[in-house]
């Protein structure tokens, strides 16, 4: 069996959520099938500038075929088109223009799929919202398996995606909340799908003492791992944690790991360690008393899963229904919506060792049951097996785009309005992934 993994960026040094997800899946599926990665020459997700060499190379034993991006992203144009599509009534042509402006526009990659798509039994497209996934799935719908990595943002309300979500062979969801949202947005309940998620290569014996010695951190601390960005909820995290330092007698510090796009508050109990390699990162997470996930939009938090794998509780932003749902299903994390809830939850975890220990143990169990690589691989292989037997879904097609005039009829509702109309997913039964 030959599989293609199609993703917007790919490489050892590329640590974006969906990109890392794609790399892990490609490397693990390579044990069971011949895998080829189709991607672009871009490494910067803001500009999509061609920085890597086009052609074929090997990354961790997986063949990677890179294609050039036709044009870089112009933030001004992309911003204008986003406003047009998200906030105003617009046309199909506006949405296609928005998709092109978003990038990474690589017609060469799409042409390769159109020309050589039959070489692959199945093509996994990562991140539904990008150019490569939309046009790639339309190029080979009978082989397309979509890993949408959809967050609850306005892009899900863009109407061009619904036919693609209904027309692919299967979808590999990251969470039940994501599945419910996509089903509501596109009406694709009859498309085969499974909630899979992603595993993680967490070391078996992290060294907390090594971390404490190396970074000179003695106190109990909460940790945040990821890009320190307002979009990730870090501004709110800083406000809430400053309040915790001011209003409670707690001893917890906050340790930040990752590149910062925000000013980190200057406080002796807020420490920014910058980007750490995996060894230090896992040591830090194993040392921490709790991992804080302040993000509003996540399709799946790998960091939260890693914390659970290490037996650490998680304190998540309840405004992100995926994180909240996972906390509830796993019984391994608390969640907050307001400052008071943040403080009380943090104090509860800090002061109640029984609670902290029980949450951590539940998290470890939850990870082992649902996110161990053997489980993930099995779910992927079962889906491939199911599709190979399912001749009905093989005939699935994606309807062509309407004509020139119909595409320019500005009768589509604002995407943000569509999103607002989508129901908030209810958390399914406990114990599920």
């Amino acid at each position, binding site marked *: 069996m030959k599989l293609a993994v199609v993703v917007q960026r790919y490489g050892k040094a590329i640590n974006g959520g969906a990109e890392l997800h794609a790399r892990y899946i490609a490397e693990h599926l390579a044990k069971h099938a011949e895998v080829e990665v189709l991607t672009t020459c871009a490494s910067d997700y803001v500009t999509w500038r061609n920085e890597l060499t086009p052609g074929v190379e090997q990354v961790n034993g997986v063949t990677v075929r890179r294609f050039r991006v036709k044009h870089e992203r112009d933030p001004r144009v992309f911003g204008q088109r986003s406003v047009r599509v998200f906030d105003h009534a617009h046309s199909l042509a506006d949405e296609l223009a928005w998709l092109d402006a978003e990038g990474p526009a690589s017609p060469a990659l799409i042409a390769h799929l159109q020309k050589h798509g039959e070489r692959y039994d199945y093509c996994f497209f990562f991140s539904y919202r990008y150019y490569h996934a939309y046009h790639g799935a339309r190029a080979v719908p009978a082989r397309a398996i979509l890993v949408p990595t959809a967050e609850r943002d306005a892009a899900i309300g863009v109407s061009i995606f619904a036919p693609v979500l209904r027309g692919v062979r299967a979808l590999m969801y990251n969470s039940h909340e994501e599945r419910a949202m996509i089903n509501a947005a596109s009406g694709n309940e009859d498309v085969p799908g499974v909630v899979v998620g992603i595993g993680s290569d967490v070391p078996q014996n992290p060294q907390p003492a090594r971390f404490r010695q190396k970074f000179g951190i003695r106190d109990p601390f909460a940790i945040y791992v990821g890009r320190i960005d307002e979009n990730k909820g870090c501004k709110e995290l800083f406000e809430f944690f400053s309040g915790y330092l001011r209003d409670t007698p707690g001893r917890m510090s906050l340790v930040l790991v990752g590149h910062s796009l925000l000013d980190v508050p200057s406080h002796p109990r807020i420490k920014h360690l910058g980007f750490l390699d995996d060894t230090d990162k896992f040591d830090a997470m194993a040392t921490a008393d709790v991992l804080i996930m302040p993000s509003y939009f996540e399709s799946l938090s790998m960091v939260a899963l890693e914390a659970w794998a290490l037996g650490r509780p998680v304190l998540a932003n309840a405004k992100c229904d995926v994180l909240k749902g996972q906390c*509830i299903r796993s*019984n391994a994390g*608390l*969640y907050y*919506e*307001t400052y008071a809830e943040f403080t*009380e939850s943090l104090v*509860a975890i800090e002061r109640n060792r029984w609670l902290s220990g*029980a949450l951590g143990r539940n998290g470890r169990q939850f990870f082992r049951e649902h996110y161990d690589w053997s489980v993930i691989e099995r779910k992927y292989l079962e889906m491939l097996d199911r599709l190979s037997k399912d001749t009905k879904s093989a005939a699935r097609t994606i309807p062509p785009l309407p004509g020139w005039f119909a595409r320019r009829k500005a009768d589509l509702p604002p995407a943000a309005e569509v999103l607002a109309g989508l129901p908030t997913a209810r958390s399914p039964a406990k114990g599920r992934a």
Partner: protein
Amino acid sequence: MPDFNVRSDSVNVEQIMEQIRARIRDKRGVDYTEQQLREMAAVKLEKFLDPRGVRSDLLEQFKRHQPAYEPPVLPSFTFEDTTIYETPRGLLRTIRKLLNPILKLFFNPNPIIHVLHTQADLNAVNLLREAAREKQRMEIDALYYEVIHNLVFEMTRLGIDTKNVKMRVESIASRLEFNERRARALESVVAYREPDESEGERRPEAPPVQAPRPQPFSRPQNNQGGWTPPPAPQPAQAVGESIATSGSVPYSGASTPGTPGIPGGQPASGAGQPGSQGPQGPEGPGQRSRRRRRRRGRRGGGAPAAVVMGAPGSTGSTETAPQSADAAFPAEARSDAPAASNEPERAPESSGPDNDTDPQ
């Protein structure tokens, strides 16, 4: 602080969050989200504020009406010495140059050119300055609106906080009032027995007092008819003092008017109060039999011990000392457990100074 019932692995995150929210509600009253605060701010302002004054949706209004700043396109006012002769046609320009001396025969254009040139420079400088001011003004406007909006928002938050604090103050005031009433009630049930000669005669076995003992609720010397409440103690002290007095009060009623607080020929131990016997010395003669009679009276259909003792009814005395002594503090505070079952029936009777008289 948080003390959750988490003693096993079977934690339920939703239940814990409920506990946390309940704790927050207990601490702060109703906890509003930012969104709720914003909605309330809008509603409150619409309802109470002058619509011509501050508006609740200031920032939205401002953003709607305020166009994005665009630097103005400045017209070119350059004026050089060649400007008046300029033309795209080369032949015409040549003719003008040839005829220029003839023009200068009629007037001198140089001062005009100079003035216009200077004026063009001034205009350009002024336009640049004006554009900079406009930009600055728009930035300040944005900040101003932001500040006003935040002020309105914070005003709303403060209003809600004030309301919550008021409610808490009212709650505390009502509790204080209740405690004061309770303290007064506790003070009022302490009764003092009038000196009764006949009773004194009926107790020949009572030994004389060995030494004076402090009586917290002793009656003033010249108060013969009723009794004056003692100084109001703190609630906690009141209970303690009631306990300390519970055994001695009936006997203090037997003290002579001239020796307030000194039991008239009776030992000061708490009759039937195990806890009170120690510090007040051993039981005196006759006390044990009296206590036995009182208990018998309680067991025998709830007749007040005082009746059995003959204090109020049988002797015609106006005192109800034993009743008052039992009712002086709550049942759970008393150490005489068997008596507790009769307490609710008798407590109301001895709730005020008026009940010092015979309840029957």
